[in-house]
Structures are given as structure tokens and as C-alpha cells.
């Protein structure tokens, strides 16, 4: 059996987490499924559960000069309908799951889950997002790359709670986002492609292909410099580490990632560079 705790404030939650390891449960759209059991029997949670979805202090979205700030308990629906968040970010969130799941699922949940197919990770990698982790005695801020160690593994300590996502403001004149799934909605990504450009910069993130998001600042600089497309494509292809799975094939995922990259390079006429 497992214990279920419902703290009334964030501080109280952190006190509980200081004493013992809990699974923080917010929207529950992933954890409840993973804890599935014969319908009508007790859910099969592996440890004790800390219910946090009611902690209003973590449900805010605000903006300052440098960045967009999102509480970890902001729901996907809330983010998708936000008037302040950037369009490339909202385009990603609004294609996740289904309307009902987006109403419950939180941004923080998708990030700490750290699945290779987590759709929020590509925009966070793309914008060099930072995450705020709080424990009873410490608040620390780390980059998304430092946070995601590998598939399903993060650098969050058991006594820490992800409280805030900081999405730096990047210039974004145009963007493309393509998400490939087995159907057009309510489906996990087989591969996703997100790219933004401005007069002076380009950024590319490829999701779901490898265990973690593909993002290379070095390659982005080459694109900006007008390096020949073949070299760019070879550079990205050298980063591919996908494999066949029950949803798709290595060949498909890698071919499509390259197709989308190549098409984006061509339609933006990056052969001339942008510097």
C-alpha cells in the first residue's frame, strides 16, 4: 500500500519531501496510467504519493524583460490559450494529447517525465530554457540540458520539486513545427521538427528521434553562415541515433527529419546565409 498526502501549501509540500521520498502527482495523466491495475482494485503506485495539483502558487504565467515564466502546474490548455506566450511554444502545446488531457496535464509533468517523445522538450531546448527546482532549504536554477540526463531520467533530487519554467525570449520571425504521429490527433510523436528563424539567427530542435532532443548550436551557426546544405544535412544525420520500435521505423523517422530539415533550408534560402 502507499500513502497519499495532500499538502496545503508549497512550503508544506517541500517539508514532506524533505522527510521522505514521494511521487509528486499533478495532472496525473501519466502517473495514473502507469499505476494502472485491475479496474476497481487499488492503483499500483510504486511509492507514496504527494498530491500537488491544487497548489495555486505554481499555476501562474508571467513575463519580464528577458523571459516568459511558467509555474510548473500551468496546464497545457492554459499555456495553449495564453495571450502572452510565444506562438511557436503554443503551436507545440496545442498539438499535445487531446483537449480533455490538456485540461489536466501540466507543463511540469511533461518535463519531469522526461520521455523521449515528450513534446514540450523541443521548444525548451530550442530556447535554452531554464528550470527552477526548490527543496526545503534551497532554490536552484538549471538549464533544460542539465535537467534531462537521459530518457526517463532527470537530475531532480528526490526532495526537489520543479516549480518554474523559464523560457528566455528569443527572436522568432517565422517558425515551422511538424509533429508526426500515427494519426492526426491524440497520439505520441514518432518524430517532431521545430525550427525558428530571425534576421540574425536560426534554431532547430528535433524531437522523439533520439532518447533526448537533438539541438546543435554549432550546426545552427553553420546554417546562418550559409554552409552548403549537404554538409548541414550530414552534420545533423551524424547526430541521429534512432531505432525501429512498435510505432515506427528508424528509416522513416530519420528520412522524415532530413526531409523537413532540407525543405526548411530550401524555402528559407539559407544557402546565402543570414549573417
Amino acid at each position, binding site marked *: 500500500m502507499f500513502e497519499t498526502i495532500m499538502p496545503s501549501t508549497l512550503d508544506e509540500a517541500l517539508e514532506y519531501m524533505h522527510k521522505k521520498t514521494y511521487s509528486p502527482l499533478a495532472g496525473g495523466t501519466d502517473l495514473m496510467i502507469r499505476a494502472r*491495475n*485491475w*479496474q*476497481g*482494485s*487499488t492503483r499500483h503506485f510504486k511509492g507514496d504519493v504527494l498530491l500537488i495539483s491544487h497548489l495555486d502558487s505554481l499555476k501562474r504565467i508571467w513575463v519580464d524583460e528577458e523571459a516568459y515564466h511558467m509555474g510548473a502546474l500551468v496546464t497545457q490548455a492554459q499555456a495553449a490559450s495564453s495571450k502572452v506566450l510565444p506562438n511557436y511554444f503554443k503551436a507545440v502545446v496545442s498539438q499535445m494529447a*487531446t483537449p480533455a488531457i490538456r485540461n489536466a496535464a501540466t507543463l511540469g509533468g511533461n518535463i519531469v517525465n522526461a520521455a523521449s517523445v515528450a513534446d514540450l522538450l523541443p521548444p525548451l531546448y530550442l530556447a535554452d530554457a531554464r528550470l527552477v527546482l526548490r527543496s526545503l532549504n534551497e532554490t536552484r536554477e538549471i538549464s533544460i540540458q542539465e535537467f534531462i540526463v537521459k530518457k526517463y531520467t532527470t537530475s531532480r533530487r528526490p526532495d526537489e520539486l520543479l516549480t518554474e519554467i523559464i523560457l528566455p525570449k528569443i527572436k522568432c520571425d517565422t517558425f515551422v513545427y*511538424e509533429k*508526426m*504521429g*500515427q*494519426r*492526426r*490527433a*491524440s*497520439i*505520441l510523436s514518432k518524430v517532431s521538427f521545430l525550427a525558428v528563424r530571425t534576421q540574425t539567427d536560426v534554431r532547430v530542435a528535433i524531437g522523439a528521434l533520439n532518447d533526448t532532443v537533438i539541438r546543435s548550436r554549432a550546426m545552427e551557426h553553420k546554417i546562418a553562415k550559409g554552409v552548403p546544405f549537404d554538409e548541414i544535412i550530414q552534420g545533423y544525420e551524424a547526430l541521429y541515433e534512432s531505432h525501429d520500435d*512498435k*510505432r*515506427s*521505423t528508424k*528509416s*522513416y523517422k530519420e*528520412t*522524415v527529419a532530413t*526531409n*523537413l530539415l532540407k*525543405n526548411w533550408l530550401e524555402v528559407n534560402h539559407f544557402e546565402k546565409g543570414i549573417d
Partner: protein
Amino acid sequence: MKITDSVERIDSRAKIRGMAKYIEDKVYPEMLYAKTLRSDHARARINQIKYPECPQGIYVIDSKDVILNNEVSMIDTAMPVFSNETIYYAGEPIALIVGSDKDAVLRYMEGIEIDYILEEDPFFDLDTASKVPSNILTAHTIEKGNLNTIEYDFVLEETFRTPYQEQLYMEKQGMIGRFEEGVIIVEGSMQCPYYILNALKHMTGWNEDRLRVIQATTGGAFGGKEEYPSLLACQVATAAYKLKKPVQLILDRREDIAFSTKRHPARIYVKSYVKNQKIQGMEMEILLDAGGYLGLSDVVLQRALLTMTGAYKVDHLRIEGKTVRTNNVFTGAFRGFGAPQSLYALELHMTHLANRLNLDPMTFRENHFVVEGDPTSTEGIFHEHIPLHELSDKCRKLAEANMASEKKQKWVGYGVAVVPHGGGFTGDGEAAHIKAVVHLRKEADGMVTILVSNVEMGQGAITALSKIVASALEIPISRVKYEIPDTSKVPDSGPTVASRTTMVVGALLYRAALDLKPHLQELGTYTAVESYKKPDYVVWDQETFKGNAYLAYSWVALIARVEVNPLTYEVKCTHIWSCYDVGRPIDEQMSEGQAHGGMIQGLGYALMEHMTSKGGFIEQFAFSSYPIPTPMDIPEMTVEWVINPYEDGPFGAKAVGELTLVGVAPAISAAIEDAIGHETFTIPVTPEIIERTLSVWKNSN
């Protein structure tokens, strides 16, 4: 009322409001919950099962508890209620673990140890399995004319493959067994109450005085609740009899997808001999993966074979078919029943032939359409008007408005299919085996009650049958009641399968209504009884497969339009135009609903419902891994009718339900081929298949 009046679905209000009680909603005093103990291996012998000592309130029900025969009767009796020795597929039921506390049941199950002996190699691959003679469960050959004497310009031979398809009814499989006053009562989600009654009779050796089967509200079935519920019914009946308490068995969703019947994977070989742009003769072979037990697979095979020439006249034929035993999950009934496999292969082959001949695919088909008076593939005679040219003309006109407005562009394609579906049981099955009986009773209060064993499973049976009765009696539909099928109350009007409910059972009720009509004004009650009588035109020899394979055929012409994304190879089916001959639709709105549902289920089969087996276990056993179409995937659908009343159908109605699915996959596949410029030989045509097809072509050039 008149048959042409539009009515509200009789069952819809209770379902929409959440008032309908499904089997999972039912609670009886002292009811216990059962969980199935399943085999971990696909092919094994059970040496020993070590059950821990049962704590109070936990019970093990297995083969030793079966009253008489540890056999599930579904045509043959090879399948055990509980396996006690040989395991033929992964997940085969061994026992029920029963208790009032589900957590305690699960804790107990963790302690069970099964010692298996793995002495024989299992068969998972259809091709490999089919080469071993002992795996061939049944085989049939249909021959007509003489292929040796025909002349031809060229030959086209192709092999197609079709995958599993899961019914994915919204309500999972479920049964409750009770033992009350010496009677075993089984209640649950089902299509065929009398199939279950017969299975219980065989298992117990009892007669129907001590056995009773009741249908609970059934949330979808599509064939998945044709034969499989007989297994579950035998299990809960055994448990309820032993424990003398109600026992509920509800499969979890993942358990249901992984271990209940699904559509047969098939390999279909088609070879055509062509001269002067006409098919002179055809050879075909179809192999079906039956899984661990035959079940209904041979009947599925027969329909696959008997429909193999589709809408076309072919004078010289040889069609072979086999059901092959593998150690995969056992396969069974699913809307279309063998026809989706054979007609996918035939229709795509017709498109490939038209391409070779540089002919429009619809025109090439039209040149081969059967007409009234033509011989069938089994040397029967098409005895009715066949409006195939009207259907193809009308369908083409519907689509042409769209096609004319766009120039031929790369990555956009159109595909056609024209298919039949025979209504009711194959051959003389209705008269020889089913022998349907219906009752129609005028009650003392003036209401009229329909008493049949055909169930409402979401398809609209109650509304269709009530409409037929009310229209025949010329009374308001509100005066017609439908008795929930309960074998202690309703006669055996046969199973709710084979698109027969409206066409066959509805016709019996129509005749019963004409008998009842003069008695409507009398006091007291009056019951009209009608039994199935074989029409004179049905001549059938089940030994030789000669004669009229079906009572009457329904027909459809389809055109699908797709757009393929050249970068991601994703397919968007944008529009399906369809034109049907279902005799006369009993209710246009309901028939349109059937057409829409069939097109969507067919679209899933064509594009995305990828299901594979690994080591005998279904790999995609969750909603997240087995994708069916969402509203975002549904194309625009145009539905039109050609009214062609069938003389023996109620108000001229013929089969509807299955027809709407069978032609969709080949039409969409052909549209994709048109868009990408390459042939395909398997479904679902996923983006991965398109990527591979294009890359193979690219590498070979």
C-alpha cells in the same frame, strides 16, 4: 407510421444520459469478482500449477470444476473452458481467481507458480506455419470452367497481405454468472444469446430448463462479441455454480485487446489471365491465421472464398483457401467476416490490371460487372437486378464535380472500389442451421412486443425492427416494444451477425405483423409466430460449394481522394464518395450512420491500425499504441443510394452493416498508389510503408 418516416433512435436517450446499465454497472448481493489466470507461453504443456493455500474468500476455479465437458462449443469443441494441459496460444485462460476483494485476488495471484514444459516449437509466422501439413485446420477449393483451355495475352500475379484488426468496441467484454434455484443464469455483453445457451448446454449436459442467457446493454461488438463471449460465459457459469454466488468477469481494456478475437491476418495470392483487356480466368489462394483454435475461422474462410470474385464475372476460376493453425491469439468474427481480406486483394489487383492496360480503373471494372442472370463463382445464378452500372455512374458523378475542378497533381490521388456483400448466412445456412423463429405479441393493453434473440449492440436493431413492425401494422412506433433478449423469454431467431438482422429477421417480423394485423383490435393477447422458409431460388450444396452462396447481395461503389505529404509521407484522406444498393434503406439516417461508421473503420484498417504479434503476444494492446481514427482523421463522406427493393426483404431491405466497411481499404490504397505513383501490397499503408516503397524505388533507379 410509414417506413419512410424518420424516427429517433429508440436506445439513444438512455445511452446518452448514462441511464443504460452495462454489465459492469450491475451489482448483485454477495457478488464476487473474477480475474483470469493466463498462460505466459504460446505453446507449452502445463506440468504443474502450484497454488498457494487460499486465504478465506479467495477461490480458484479451473478445469476440475467444469460440470461435464471442459469444452467451449463454437461449431467445433476443441477449445477448453480452462486449459488444463496443452497451451496453444499466449494468454490462454487456465483458471479464474475469484474473490470479493480485488486487491486480495491480485495478491493471491502473485504467489501462483506455473511449471511449463516447452517441448515443441511454436508457430507465429503464417507462411512458415502453412508449410506444415498438421497446421492446416481446414481447406477448400472452388473450381469453375477450365483454366487449362483459356487463351491470354498476359498474366498478372500478385501477393497481398492484410493484418490483424481489433474491433475496439467501446464496452469491454464482460459477463456475470449466477446460480439461482437450480438455474445457471449468464448475463452480459453479447451478440448471440443462443450461441451461449448452446455452449452452456454442451458444457453442463443440462437442458434449457436449467440454463438462461440474458443480454445486457451492449456497447459495441462488430463481431467481437459473436463467439468469444461463449468462452467467458462458460467460465462464469462454472464459477457461479461452484461458489453458489454471482461472479462477475470483466476484461480490462489491455487484456481485451491482447487476448480476445480479432480479424484474421491473411495472405492472398491473385493471378489473372488477360486477353483483349478482359480477364479470362483467375487463380486465387487465401491463407488465414486462425491462431491457436479454429473457432469460427472456417466459416470466415468460406465467406472470404465465396466473395473472392467480387462484383465481376469470371468464367474460369480456381480458388483455394486454408485456415492455418499458429500459436498466435485466436482470431474470429469481425464486420465483413473474411471479405475485407479477399476484397482488398481483388480490388487492388483490379486497379493494378487497369494500370497495366492503361484503362480508367472504374471503366475496367465496368467491363467485368456481373448482371442479372449471370452465373456466380459457385455456378449459382444472380437472380436479382444488379444495379452496378447505376452505382458506378452515380458515384463517379458525385466525385467528378471535385475531380474536374483540380488538375492532376502529384501527391494527390483517387482510388475506386466496387464490392458486394452477401446478406445473411452463407448458402442454405439460414434454413439448414439457423432456422430462425420470431414471435410478435399483441399485449392486452394494445402494445405490440417484438420477441427475437437479435440484440441491439449500437447498430440500431431495435429501431429498425420496431420501424418494420410499426409500419407493417400501420401503428405509431411508440406502440411497439422490444423485449431484451433472454433465452427464457424469446425464441431463437438466430445470432446478430452477417448483416442478417434487418434483412432476414426483419422479414420474419414483417410477415408476423401481417398475421397479427387482423387481431389488433381484439381483446386479450395474440402471438404471431413466424419461422424461416427457404426461398425457392436458394439452391446450395455445402459439400461441393455449388449453388447460390447468398440470399441476396448488397453492392457499393466507392471513390476515395487522398493527399500525401511529400516530406512526411503522411496520408490525409480528404473525401470518400459512396453509392450503395442496400435494397431500400429501412431508415436513411441510420443507414447513413452505418455507412459513416463503416468508412471510418475501413479507413483505420487502410491507414493506421497497425497490429503485430511478437512471440504470440499482441504488441499493440493499448489505446496509445493501437491507433484508430480520431475526428481529425475522418474525411468528408458523401453517401448516396440506388433504391433496388429486394422481394424477400422487409420493405425491400437488404444487408447494410458489413458492406460499408469492406471496400474502403482497397479504395484508399488505390488512391495512395495514384498519389505516389507506386503499387502497394499490404495494409495499413502507413507513412513508413510509403517511405520504404519510395526508397526501394529510388535505390533501384
